[in-house]
């Protein structure tokens, strides 16, 4: 066979992005832009939501908690989804960056879960007259929080990096299956106070959905939270990559 170079396919090019060196390159260029976009959409979404929308007829000004509560809850779930995907990619393709991204996503997702739970409790007190009820949604979030804590604890407990990456990935995948199961189990267990999904893109149940006046700033702050998550994720992953490089350097120094 002649040594004619094979043209890289699209998928090759895609996976090359996960090469640590190339990842550090494009993420450092992209990071300021994403961070700026996150800041801009968060500020505008929250300021619009808090100061330039009217109070709700029944809920008064407490309705404004929605601008923190819904995006945080959304990111809490997407964070776990991202961990699941990162774990799968690591187990199948052994891409170090993907498992480091999963590792970096865990604390961010955990804090998002906490924000959703805390704002939910603060919102629940005036609306339902109680901070906490054992409602399906609330309970699933508490369980999701436990999953995050377990994942982080397992990372911290195992010394060897690759072993830790493998074991936490197995846990993330099994955990994802059980998280779905718990989600439906708690529905069976208790009918709750929490309202159903009212933020959908579909036109179908228009009357059930929240009105546009609240929806537009909400959409903006949802995008803001998404970008914020991405920013923190990139920073976290870059830190992990650097920590790995540092360890390698230290090990090399000890040998020499």
């Amino acid at each position, binding site marked *: 066979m002649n040594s004619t170079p094979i043209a890289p396919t699209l998928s090759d090019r895609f996976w090359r992005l996960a090469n640590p060196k190339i990842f550090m390159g494009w993420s450092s260029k992209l990071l300021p832009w994403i961070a700026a976009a996150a800041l801009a959409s968060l500020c505008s979404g929250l300021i619009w939501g808090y100061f330039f929308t009217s109070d709700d007829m029944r809920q008064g000004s407490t309705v404004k908690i929605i601008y923190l509560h819904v995006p945080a809850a959304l990111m809490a779930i997407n964070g776990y989804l991202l961990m699941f995907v990162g774990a799968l990619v690591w187990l199948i393709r052994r891409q170090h960056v993907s498992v480091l991204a999963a590792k970096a996503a865990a604390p961010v997702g955990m804090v998002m879960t906490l924000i959703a739970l805390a704002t939910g409790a603060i919102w629940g007190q005036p609306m339902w007259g109680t901070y906490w009820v054992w409602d399906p949604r609330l309970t699933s979030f508490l369980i999701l929080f436990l999953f995050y804590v377990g994942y982080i604890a*397992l990372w911290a*407990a195992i010394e060897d990096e690759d072993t830790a990456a493998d074991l936490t990935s197995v846990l993330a995948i*099994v955990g994802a299956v059980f998280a779905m199961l718990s989600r439906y189990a708690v529905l*069976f*267990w208790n009918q709750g106070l929490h309202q159903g999904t009212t933020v959908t893109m579909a036109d179908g149940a228009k009357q059930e959905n929240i009105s546009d006046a609240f929806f537009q700033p909400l959409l903006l702050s949802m995008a803001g939270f998404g970008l914020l998550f991405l920013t923190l994720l990139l920073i976290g992953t870059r830190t992990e990559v650097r920590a790995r490089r540092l360890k390698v350097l230290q090990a090399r120094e000890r040998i020499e």
Partner: protein
Amino acid sequence: MIQLFLRDIGLSVRSGGGFGLALIFFLIVVTLIPFALGPDPSALAVIAPGVLWLGALLACLLSLDRIFGLDFEDGTLDLLATSPLPLESVYMAKASAHWLTTGLPLSLAAPVLGVLLNLDYETGKILCLSLLLGTPALSLIGAFGASLTLGVKRGGLLLSLLVLPLYVPSLIFGAQAVRLAGQALEYDVALVILSAISLGAAAILPFASGAALRINLR
């Protein structure tokens, strides 16, 4: 595989194996509940299904780190890994031995202890049945958790942290079945889902656990 299964049962029944420990722990939990909540029989009957399920779950948790722990320390597990038996089968043998020595006795003891909590006879039968169907999932999930935390020193707390969220669906459906039976309502659905969880765990977790064992023995 059968040899390994019998060996594990033998080891755990002998003294220091923790066979009686789970049962005694279960008895202690059930005895302490009335002291904490008051001796009113009707109130106890209401909480009995939940308490008995929770007690069985916690008792099951006690002996989890023994499933692989001792074999990992003295090198038996390394020998098993090099034997022709796949680690998935090792996991199944150990999980079923764990179930036979904790889940089964706990299920049989639960209706008897239910008498202490004013649980009536018919509900007691459902309790026994739901535990029989549900505890295999507890052993399987627990053995999976044990294979994850194998290399961690003093991994007991970590093991419970990892395993408890995975126990939630089984606990919900198990206790729900008994509660529904206590109110003379339909409880079939809960029992069916409970057994579905056990069967699903038996179908999926051997592979996850085999992978985890292989990683830990690397």
